[in-house]
């Protein structure tokens, strides 16, 4: 009926987390190959991971590194080679060059275009579809109506993020390493294990930084709009949880699982204020709706 998914970076996180609310897991931290035991960089972990996720009755999608330089391509190739021989349910690709590579390596698994695939139009969706892409994560700047237009006019499956911080920037260097005394080429000290924030003294602007990626300060929250999403016949939903605690992942998943189950059963959502309070309590910098309603990403638009 619907699929609720989230992301898991490493075997440790997979073991530690409660993913019972989710139907599918995107494995790997796509912004940083140095992230400890990242599925994106360690082909040796992939067989166990796929088996574990399937044993939980969930789909396992493997994420590929989003910003590979020329010298990263051999590492990514090894990961793809290992994954092609394993029962993964698909790849997530952010880099168009890797689409080319997957095609030439004979991939037949479904491919999902990730958030940094820069998808803005149905014309581009048709191009990537020719490379085996079956699902796209439209650029966060697109409104809900634009995402639906792309789904209907390509046609192609679209992934709709419903909760979590919005990925805004991905870069090839680690901002945390650079700004905490790390030298170029020096080993990563995994300082991103601690939450890092960018805040602006004048005004309440905030961003969360995970090193190679900058995320929105506020958490995207679509709980008040679940009925609108289901009415639009959207059915693939995603919780962005990179850098969040196991409690966050479990709680957010449970809330949205219940909300979508009710909505797809035709039940009204009712009073969501207590659940919004709970989600708000997990969001250090507040809630927002991203760009879904045509506004600046950090705005929150309640149900009218």
């Amino acid at each position: 009926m619907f699929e609720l998914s989230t992301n898991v970076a490493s075997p440790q996180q997979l073991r530690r987390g409660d993913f019972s609310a989710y139907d599918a897991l995107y494995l790997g931290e796509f912004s940083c190959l140095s992230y400890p035991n990242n599925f994106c960089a360690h082909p040796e972990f992939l067989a166990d991971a796929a088996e574990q996720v399937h044993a939980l009755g969930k789909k396992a999608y493997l994420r590929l590194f989003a910003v590979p330089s020329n010298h990263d391509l051999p590492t990514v190739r090894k990961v793809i080679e290992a994954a092609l021989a394993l029962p993964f349910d698909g790849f997530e690709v952010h880099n168009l060059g890797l689409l080319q590579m997957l095609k030439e390596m004979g991939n037949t698994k479904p491919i999902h275009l990730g958030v940094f695939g820069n998808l803005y139009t149905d014309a581009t969706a048709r191009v990537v579809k020719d490379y085996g892409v079956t699902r796209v994560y439209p650029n966060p700047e697109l409104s809900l109506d634009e995402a639906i237009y792309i789904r209907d006019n390509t046609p192609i499956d679209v992934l709709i993020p419903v909760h979590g911080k919005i990925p805004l920037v991905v870069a090839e260097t680690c901002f945390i390493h650079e700004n905490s005394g790390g030298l170029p080429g020096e080993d990563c000290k995994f300082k991103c294990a601690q939450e890092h924030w960018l805040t602006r003294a004048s005004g309440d602007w905030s961003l969360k930084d995970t090193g190679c990626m900058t995320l929105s300060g506020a958490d995207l929250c679509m709980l008040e709009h679940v009925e609108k999403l289901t009415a639009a016949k959207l059915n693939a939903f995603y919780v962005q949880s990179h850098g969040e605690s196991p409690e966050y992942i479990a709680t957010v998943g449970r809330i949205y699982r219940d909300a979508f189950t009710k909505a797809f059963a035709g039940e009204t959502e009712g009073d969501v204020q207590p659940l919004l309070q709970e989600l708000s309590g997990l969001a250090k910098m507040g809630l927002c709706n991203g760009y879904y309603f045509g506004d600046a990403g950090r705005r929150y638009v309640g149900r009218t």
Partner: protein
Amino acid sequence: MCRLVLDEGADAVYVGVVGWSRRGAEHELSDDEIRHVIDDAQARGREVRVVVNTLPSSTEIPMFLDRIQQYAGWGARGFMISDVGCMRLVKTLLPDVAVHTSVGCGVTNFEDVRFLRDNGATHVVLPYRMTVEEIAEIKQKTGVGIEVFLFKTPSGGKICPGKCMMSSYFSYRRWLDETGKDHFYGSASRGGDCLRVCQSEWDFGPDDAFIRHGMTIKTNPALWLDELPAYLAAGVDCLKVPGRDRSDLLVRDIVRFYRRVLDRIQESDNPDLSGFREPLLVFHQRWKVERGIRDNRLIGEAEREARRVEREQVSAKNFEVVI
């Protein structure tokens, strides 16, 4: 400015179309102006390339293609495009035009470039931090025309052309004009100005223990010189001087300067560029001053827009507010 830079030795000039390039309208040209520039450049045996590098809405694509056909009919032979789907459509419609992919395509490796080439790109603009070795490998493995900016950001900070939505997260508005064209304030990717929020002053650190105060997220780029022979040897075909957001006189002087540098490089296998270093320092200073003025103006706009939005809505932190 177009006439000035062609007079100073630029081989080609890029012109942005109002509403369709990655900058605000004040740096873009109307159709009449574009036609005039094309005629003028053709009379001088030079080339005009039309910049239509926004990432448009799906519904704007027919309008986008009409525009391209119009400019091609006027004699434009090259177009700068970011959207891969639009690129393929243009190449199908007008197989003889050159398609230059914008820096907004966010190329990171040679496989990216092969993908773009296979979907219609004849030239790619590479991001600022690529090394000579990376450029040489891309050229060797793809054969595509290579363009680089004549400035770079060698030191730290985030650089992510085509992979950054920081500006629009804080300030963004969308509206349709009478022709049905979508306009997006605050998003460079969608045709508005990037409001340079990365150039504002930020505090940074783990949780509440800030380790840096008043820092910018992105460092300022600088014009370069001594690396130029190596870049040309690596296969760079086109060197770009960014003209938007700068004064006519500064751009004119920079073009004049680099024309002389390139002529010197072409005269010798071991060109002596030492005489250009001092003038370059002056350009650095002028560049920095103009950039600072531009950044402050845009950050001011972002703040005003944020305040306007905040007046309408108390705060993103308060989920109970209903618009």
